[in-house]
């Protein structure tokens, strides 16, 4: 661990986001709970890129929405520079929006098709009164240049842009209020490889230039490794491994991370055809009735009796934190 660690800008303390399942119409009653996020603690340092990976349904998007306060938390606290976002009036949440912004996966769905680029980008400026109305046009132009779009396209509509350009507009919108933290939920998953590379370069560049902190969510581990300083691996609502991107992805320790890393195809036929691949059987269990003990024990090759009971906490192991009781033995 480096001696002078930058202070955390965003802290998550034992976040729980549960969704009730109701049955019935007249006599509605709760019949179960989806534990989408179940006890996640993380901290994001100033200027850091934190990657969040996991399969669909592991709760990574719900965690992103919880950070943004787009869904109510069931328990725990989200602290942005020490201020707790989970308690507070909607007016104070409005204030927080300036510091905390989000970029979504699908740039076809996240931009309003009836709003021009100018309307999209000027709205946050006007709502939050960040500049005098006379300067809005100039600010929008600067924002567009920042993300690599020519300001002359200001009066165009989203459908006139390609997927990559739309994602640039979405990023410009997130940057409009000069936030401190951006949560990007699969921002490159919908894009082609050559366009994906452009957007990754842009995000890395913005983090460096503007001193942003970024929570970067993706299911593509090679993308996450490339851009992130640290990586958190989620499985069924919990973090199972957390450490530096190179440690976690090049030398994974948790059996689930090992399987996840091993599943990525390597773009080299000589390597890809001879390497041993860990193929997990079946699908992740349902988060409605997650297994007792370690949630991964149903698919884990190393599971023993001790894995099936009790809470498995994150413990330090080889420069990282791992939630597996058999670390060191396997």
């Amino acid at each position, binding site marked *: 661990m480096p001696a002078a660690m930058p202070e955390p800008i965003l802290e998550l303390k034992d976040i729980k986001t549960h969704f009730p399942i109701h049955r019935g119409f007249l006599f509605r009653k709760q019949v179960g709970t989806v534990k989408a996020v179940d006890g996640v603690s993380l901290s994001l340092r100033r200027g850091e890129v934190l990657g969040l990976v996991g*399969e*669909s349904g592991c709760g990574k998007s719900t965690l992103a929405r919880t950070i943004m306060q787009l869904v109510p938390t069931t328990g725990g606290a989200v602290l942005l520079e020490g201020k707790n976002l989970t308690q507070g009036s909607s007016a104070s949440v409005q204030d927080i929006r300036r510091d905390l912004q989000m970029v979504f996966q699908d740039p076809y769905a996240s931009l309003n098709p009836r709003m021009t680029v100018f309307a999209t980008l000027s709205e946050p400026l006007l709502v939050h009164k960040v500049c005098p109305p006379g300067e809005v046009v100039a600010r929008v132009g600067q924002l567009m240049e920042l993300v690599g779009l020519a300001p002359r396209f200001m009066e165009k509509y989203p459908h006139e842009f*390609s*997927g*990559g350009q739309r994602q640039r507009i979405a990023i410009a919108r997130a940057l409009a209020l000069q936030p401190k933290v951006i949560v990007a939920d699969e921002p490159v998953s919908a894009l*082609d*490889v*050559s*366009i*994906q*590379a*452009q957007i*990754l*370069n842009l995000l*890395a560049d913005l983090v460096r230039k503007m001193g942003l902190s970024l929570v970067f969510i993706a*299911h*593509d*581990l*090679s*993308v996450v*490794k*490339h*851009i992130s300083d640290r990586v958190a691996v989620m499985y069924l609502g919990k973090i199972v491994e957390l450490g530096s*991107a*190179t440690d976690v992805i090049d030398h994974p320790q948790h059996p689930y991370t090992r*399987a*996840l890393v*091993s*599943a*990525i*195809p*390597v*773009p*080299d*036929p*000589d*390597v*890809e*055809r001879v390497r041993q*691949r860990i*193929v*997990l*059987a079946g*699908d992740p269990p349902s988060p409605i009735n997650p297994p007792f003990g370690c949630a991964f024990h149903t698919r884990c090759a190393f599971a023993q009796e001790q894995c099936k009971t009790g809470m498995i906490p994150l413990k330090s192991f080889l420069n990282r934190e791992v939630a597996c009781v058999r670390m060191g033995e396997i």
Partner: protein
Amino acid sequence: MPLLKVTDLRTHFHTRNGVYRAVDGISFQLERGETLGIVGESGSGKSVTGYSLMGLVPQPPGRIEGGTAIFDGVNLLHSPPATLRAIRGKRISMIFQDPMTSLNPYLRIGDQLIEPLLIHEKISKPDALKRTLAMLEAVGINDAQARLRSYPHEFSGGMRQRVMIAMSLITKPELLIADEPTTALDVTVQAQILELIKKMQRELGMAVIFITHDLGVVAGLCDRVLVMYAGRVVESAATRTLFHHPRHPYTLALQRSIPSTQPKGSELFTIPGMPPDVSKPIPGCAFAPRCAHANEFCATLDPKLVTIANDHEQACLRVQASEI
């Protein structure tokens, strides 16, 4: 004789905004048991190639403008419907990207699986059911007997893709066209499905056309690869050759823009600009406006696919002239 020989296939879409030349003169052939990868970005025409072979191009607005696709002596593009019906769904079958939308939500899995058998083979219903059951077990679905009565929504994405694979392989086809079958799936499930396709291919000895944008998947699965750009093939080679000695600037650029091939944190290689609009005439090489090596001839002369080494073709004029 190759199992499938496609010559100068051209599929265009006639819309109010002009003629989109989605596939514009591609040729390739496929031997029995061989796996051919078709890679390219969105809009490169790789899926339309698959649809054209299966007769799934909506006409209008689509139109097969020319070319032949000879499958075991039959031209798939111009033959009586009855001849084609006996081939499609029996000797050639296709699986699609999205297993959520390619199964009928109103029909039980068993009823959907058994349909190709009842249509294409003289088989009694009990025998067909037996084969259906065996097929479901072969693709790794537990408790297959009970699952026959389930509806698609009761399955997860990976399971639905397994059902799709079972359905497409139940008639023991000689050719499987797989159009991005793992793109919508998680990596761990993708690994399962790729293993399954390999296993079924070994057992049935079928040829596979695997359409994807993921070079990693191609590396592990395919014998040969076609790289498509703006409706044309720009390079075609054996997989090892294509990965270790790519010659066309587009293939090179595509390879260099994958994060896992680059040092962590370095600036990724990007291809400037965007793919061309295929509804406008493209003089010269379609990739020239984005190519670092393009000169004045590239923008005017039409590049042809030329064999540069054993089983290695590519369509860059400057490579052909040994300039780069």
